[in-house]
């Protein structure tokens, strides 16, 4: 009863006609079966998987911070114990560091592209821009830590009042994600040094890093408005 239809003779295209190695992709846009039954398989461009995956990842992080935001708004309205705090001034410095790092990362990306094309012969130039981004990112995290120290010196700890609680939680969770981004940058630097850096890796890492900056701008505005 359980018969098996043997698979048909190989219909696969020669390897050089495949749009991407492994043949994986988005199914080949424009695959059609005309009425006369002959099969025409058209090549479709298949973007690397990380280009959609990074947006999926960013979407989930957005949802998490949306949850934190709604928690903040509800908590503010829940009781009369909202005590506004003056945001530590070092936050302006750390914001500047993070925004500048986006520019240095983009400069690095363009230098790497030039290097990969052969227009740029010296690998140390793009590498310097990558290290600059890494350094500015580390300065950002250090600045956040300084902000926490400043709050502590004012007697504002995690549980002192709801404002300080949300300040610490939001900045700490963001800093944790930035640290993950630093890990991604390190990976890019290492791969570039070994000449195994893929364009998709660099693109995904830089999208994530720019998102960290955009997210921080949002959080900074939220903190200034509400905390």
């Amino acid at each position: 009863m359980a018969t098996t239809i043997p698979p048909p003779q190989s219909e696969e295209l020669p390897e050089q006609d495949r749009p991407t190695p492994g043949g994986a992709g988005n199914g080949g846009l424009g695959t059609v079966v005309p009425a006369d039954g002959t099969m025409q398989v058209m090549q479709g461009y298949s973007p690397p998987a990380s280009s959609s995956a990074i947006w999926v990842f960013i979407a989930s992080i957005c949802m998490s911070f949306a949850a934190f935001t709604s928690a903040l708004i509800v908590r503010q309205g829940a009781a009369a114990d909202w005590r506004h705090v003056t945001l530590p001034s070092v936050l302006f410095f750390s914001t500047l560091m993070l925004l500048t790092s986006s520019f240095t990362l983009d400069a690095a990306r363009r230098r790497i592209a030039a290097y990969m094309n052969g227009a740029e012969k010296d690998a140390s130039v793009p590498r310097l821009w990558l290290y600059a981004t890494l350094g500015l990112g580390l300065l950002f995290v250090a600045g956040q830590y300084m902000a926490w120290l400043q709050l502590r010196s004012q007697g504002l700890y995690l549980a002192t009042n709801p404002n300080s609680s949300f300040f610490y939680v939001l900045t700490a969770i963001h800093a944790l994600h930035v640290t993950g981004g630093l890990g991604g940058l390190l990976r890019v630097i290492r791969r570039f040094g070994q000449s195994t850096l893929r364009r998709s890796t660099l693109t995904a890492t830089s999208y994530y890093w720019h998102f960290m900056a955009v997210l921080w701008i949002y959080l900074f505005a939220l903190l200034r408005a509400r905390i």
Partner: protein
Amino acid sequence: MSQTSPAPAATHHGPPTTFISKHVFSLDHKVIGKQYYALAFVAVITGMVLSWLMRIHLGWTNAAIPGLQVLSPNGAPGGVMTPEYYLQLMTMHATIMVFFVLTTAPFAAFGNYFLPIQVGAEDMPFPHFNMMSFWTTFTAFLVLIAAFFVSEGPPLAGWTAYAPLSAIGKAAGPGEGTGQVLWAASIGIFCIGQLLGALNFISTVLDMRTKGMTLSRLPVTCWAWFITSCMGLTAFAVLMPATILLILDHVAGTSFFVPSGLVINDQLIPHSGGSTLLWQHLFWFFGHPEVYIAIVPGMGIVTHVLITNMRRPMLSIKAILYSMWALAFLSYMVYGHHMFVSGMNPFSSLAFSFPTLMITIPSTVVVLIWIGSLYGSKLRINSASLFALGFISMFVSGGVSGFFLAQPSIDIMLHATYFVVGHFHMVMGVAAMFGIFAGTYFWFPKMTGHMMNETLGKVHFWLTFVGTYCIFMPFHYLGWAGNVRRYAAFSDDYMKPLVPLHQFITIAALFTGAAQLIFIYNLIHSRFKGPAAPANPWEGTSLEWIMPSPPPWNNFGGKDPVVYHDADQFGVKTASGADYIMQNSPEQALEPSGGD
């Protein structure tokens, strides 16, 4: 299996060589899928044993359960369960079942195994993330189970962990200190695992489809896993912040969820200003999509199994797909129906009730299409198709009680009664379990290379089908009669007469649990001694049936299938005489299926 052409240059990983890389830290989605299945298997047995302990206590409240005092000398002195320990077992039963069985088996286990295969890929796009997602989920399970072994035991606040009970710490009762923190940590870790998994699933469907596999040719199971991943991505991303805030309320003295002036057990709770409703909003924003995460993969599996066994397509597969999308979309708008009596603005009840009633429409559409397609079909009866039919039965029986609960005026009477417990156990618990069983009987030959015993499968089905109706149908009556849920004993005068019915339910539960031994025996025996399975025992059309049973490590042997059809080419006339055309066959139907 031919390996005439060399593997393409950018394969994600070479064949595993060591025992560790083959069976433990494997990058292969198939191994990861089986690991998830094994985790769900251990979890379901644990959850079932917990339910037996609960049920015995409910039927015979003062009975000593031998050995229970070993697990918890404080919770069950002399083997007699204290009311607090009942609630602790109940919390763990629900948490384990919802997270580690219903989210893990239909979605993570079968999805990891079959999604890449059904889209024609060699593996997921991020195999390392995939491996991390399993081990993260496994770690979450260990952290949760650890709660049994801390001094005060697991938490007692329910799987819903409502504040302030769950947020104020030890003062709230046994298990609310370390146990609750372990619970919250476990759930937070679980969220990370699921987010990594959802990332892989979405990328697989968008970017890893083989040539010719356009979105319209995807099998319905792939769509179900994709829709579930989209829900998981957004829902789990909200639960994790909630668990972080809950842990901070416990360990850091913050007051996100704890209001002022609480005096619990003669202790003034030091927190102040928090909002208990905030926890409910955050939790149920996750919680309602979660129940659809539990059921949508089952719907996909059932549709897939029925199409293959009916030997004809569904009346409208597009309507099923659009309905699944509608369920996913609406699931975010209905969560307040869990909060009708929470004290939130009663006008919000209207805003939540309306989409709750609307969400019955896509559910009904799916069921009607199943039933309409089944009418007049010559359905092949095997264990898989029986459990698929059982899914429909359970989903309808459990779902209709939702119409009542969706209306705030009725819900005021039925909230927190056994009516609700009966509703969700049937529509989510049992239906999803039947979906898991259907998937197991259907795909076991492919996964292991052996056929399961059909006779044992049918016996398992009938015993489970009758048994679960005997257990959960009476719950609806109990609820109408006023039986309150989450009570360890029914000593009030209006509930005492219901105890004999509880005893009947307990006996039914123990029998049905025993019937699962047939399944476990079948599973293990067939794995080693079952007859060899051919590549396509059910004459299916999708890509999992073109590969040998079990598949090689790189799925399609280094060659990529080319897809010419959707997965619904059943009941067609072909030159070869078969009534179906496989997705990768260039053969065209001689004439369109005219029905039979």
